[in-house]
């Protein structure tokens, strides 16, 4: 059965998700929810830390695959900072 709750919209569109729904769907303070626009309204989907890490890993895989093997991240940043102050 679909549970329905109503809440008033506050400043900058803030709404309070009903306590029962927060508990049921594991929505906690500091957590992240994805807002999905649907024909009927806005759907809130909780995003876990693992989901966020998975997204990071996907990007890191793309970058890592093309990254030059002889340069570490630390060296890359250091090289860029050295070049910043050197003249051609």
């Amino acid at each position, binding site marked *: 059965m679909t549970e329905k709750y109503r809440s008033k919209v506050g400043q900058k569109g803030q709404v309070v998700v009903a306590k029962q729904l927060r508990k049921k769907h594991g929505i906690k303070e500091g957590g992240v929810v994805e807002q999905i626009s649907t024909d009927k309204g806005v759907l809130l989907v909780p995003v876990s830390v693992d989901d966020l890490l998975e997204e*990071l890993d996907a990007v890191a895989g793309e970058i*890592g695959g093309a990254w030059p093997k002889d340069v*570490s*991240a*630390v060296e890359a*940043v250091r090289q*860029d900072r050295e070049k910043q102050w050197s003249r051609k």
Partner: protein
Amino acid sequence: MVKEVTLDSSVLVSAFVKGDEFRAKARRIIEKVFSGEFRVVTSAIVFVEVCGSISRRVGADKALLVKDQLVKWDNMNFIGWSELTGKRMGEAAELAVKLKLRGMNAIVVQVAREKKRSLITFDEEMAEKAKAAVEVFTH
């Protein structure tokens, strides 16, 4: 309790490069950011530097993926960007003079020092000099 930290570009670039020597450590740091253990405030110039550093090595298309991720993290309030004001510029210059730091290193250290945040960098040379001004963690 949430710990406020300042991340150097070396940590963020490492987090985005699978296979990097410090990637596992960088991923653990980002995990703490996602879980709310760490709240990051770093220089807005770090944002630009990370995108540029990655673009120069893997190309613009892939670097845009990184930019999009950083914007998402900003929207989710995981990272706050400290802008370089005249006051901060003066403080960073003082740090650069006193600690003989490179310009960009001094700008990042200033952000950490401003609110007594811990600095996390993978650059040992930067860490060695910065520890006279702030608490520093490395790999």
